[in-house]
């Protein structure tokens, strides 16, 4: 590991006085950054230690929204969200990710900014435009079983690995950013991530002088909710495909649909086309097919991931059927649908 210098912040305003170098990085839990530093994928010359950042270690709420500090751990957030019917999807997503050991360290801010799990990004002997712009993309023509089918480009097909972000995307979350000059901006999570296009190394709209301070989730009814994660082993693995959904049904009409996909997009995927087809529609097998057809219209497969469109379609439909049946039997139900 390359040597680095160290700075610490205790309060949000401390970022103002930091004299950071060009290669500086924040370190929150460290569960992703340290991993990448050991492999020389990340080589920061300076770390800003957030461990003592007291201001953003808690969750607060008012009548309109929940505010989750950037340093709230995945465990603390999962435990909290478990007791909030309108956030139960988030609890399920978090509990499906990593392991208790990792979730105890992983933070809200760090989870949103974790890097892809693309094998070639991790292997510094392979070409990767995200790690080294302009060097090529080894994944396009090699093992791309875990790679994306939506939002891809000829320069990068890596998926975003976070489960938490998929749930937050469905729940209409905003990311709160604070700059060194104290300026605050709230960005809808749906606009926070960038697709790779010709610049896969630019992954989000965070500016150099900004830090994530919190995530804000509006209080809304999402009906019956479900986070379903399909993966190679039943625990301790990233999603091949995941579907986060919430359904409010009125008679047989889809009054409100909350939806997002993981494991298939170069960013946590917000399926605007599918939601458009379904909202206000009468629930049926046909309309589900129409919706997922619309979303998959631009999907591209790369060889080893040819199974993903079908897997996404089937997972999506199975989730929707489960939610539909539960809403029909339990009128105004709000909360998680748990897997049997």
């Amino acid at each position, binding site marked *: 590991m390359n040597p*680095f210098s*160290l700075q610490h912040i205790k309060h949000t305003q401390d970022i103002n006085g930091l004299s950071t170098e060009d290669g500086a990085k924040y370190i929150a839990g460290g569960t992703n950054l340290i991993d990448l530093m050991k492999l020389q994928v990340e080589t920061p010359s300076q770390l800003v230690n957030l461990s003592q950042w007291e201001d953003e270690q808690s969750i607060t709420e008012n009548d309109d929204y929940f505010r989750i500090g950037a340093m709230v751990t995945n465990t603390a957030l*999962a435990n909290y969200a478990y007791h909030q019917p309108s956030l139960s999807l988030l*609890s399920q997503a978090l509990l499906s990710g990593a392991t*208790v*050991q*990792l979730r105890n*360290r992983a933070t809200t801010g760090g989870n949103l900014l974790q890097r892809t799990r693309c094998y070639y990004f991790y292997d510094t002997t392979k070409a990767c435009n995200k790690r080294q712009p302009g060097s090529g993309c080894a994944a396009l023509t090699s093992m791309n079983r875990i790679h994306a089918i939506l939002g891809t480009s000829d320069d990068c097909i890596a998926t975003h690995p976070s489960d938490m972000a998929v749930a937050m995307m469905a729940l209409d979350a905003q990311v709160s950013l604070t700059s060194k000059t104290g300026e605050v901006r709230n960005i809808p999570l749906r606009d926070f991530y960038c697709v790779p296009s010709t610049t896969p190394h630019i992954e989000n709209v965070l500016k150099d002088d900004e830090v994530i301070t919190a995530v804000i989730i509006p209080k809304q009814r999402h009906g019956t909710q479900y986070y379903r994660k399909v993966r190679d082993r039943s*625990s301790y693995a990233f999603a091949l495909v995941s579907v986060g959904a919430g359904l409010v049904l009125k008679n047989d009409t889809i009054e409100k649909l909350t939806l997002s996909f993981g494991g298939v997009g170069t960013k946590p995927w917000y399926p605007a086309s599918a939601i458009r087809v379904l909202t206000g529609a009468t629930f049926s097998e046909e309309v589900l097919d129409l919706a997922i057809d619309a979303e998959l219209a631009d999907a591209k497969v790369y060889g080893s991931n040819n199974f993903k469109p079908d897997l996404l379609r089937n997972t999506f439909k199975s989730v929707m059927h489960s939610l539909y049946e539960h809403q029909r039997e339990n009128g105004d139900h709000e909360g998680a649908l748990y*897997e049997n």
Partner: protein
Amino acid sequence: MSTLIVNEETYPLPEDPRTTLLDFLHQHLSMFGAKKGCDHGQCGACTVLLDGERINACLVFAFQLEGKSVTTIEGIAKKTNDSDAKLHPLQKAFVERDAFQCGYCTSGQICSGVALLGELAAKNPSAVTCSADYSQKEDISERMSGNLCRCGAYPNIVDAIEDVIALEPQ
């Protein structure tokens, strides 16, 4: 001076900030109970407790834990006055159930299991307790899934944990 508490003793933080907690335990304190398996958060062999919560010692720098308290497998057995170590009930259950084969992953498994008992007492949810047909064995497996054991002693590990849960009803 910046310090870190390990098994109730206070130590100065290492000078080189690149030192992970696991390397600090091994190279500075000569405590080899926590094992280095993968060194990347993928096996759980390095599991220790941080203020009672389990974490992977390989994915945290010592400086991140300034002022905090770490318990390793060496500190799980409570010291008695005559400096004889008294085994934790879960350690006894591991012995009784023969819940280890080569033993390499055992210290991580025990640290993880000790934290798990606390998590159950606190009624923390897991991906399985969300389930309609809750089954304790399945839930223990899920909660212990951060610890891999190459020789597959899992059934005995789960049995040992169940024994202790039965001892101290949650």
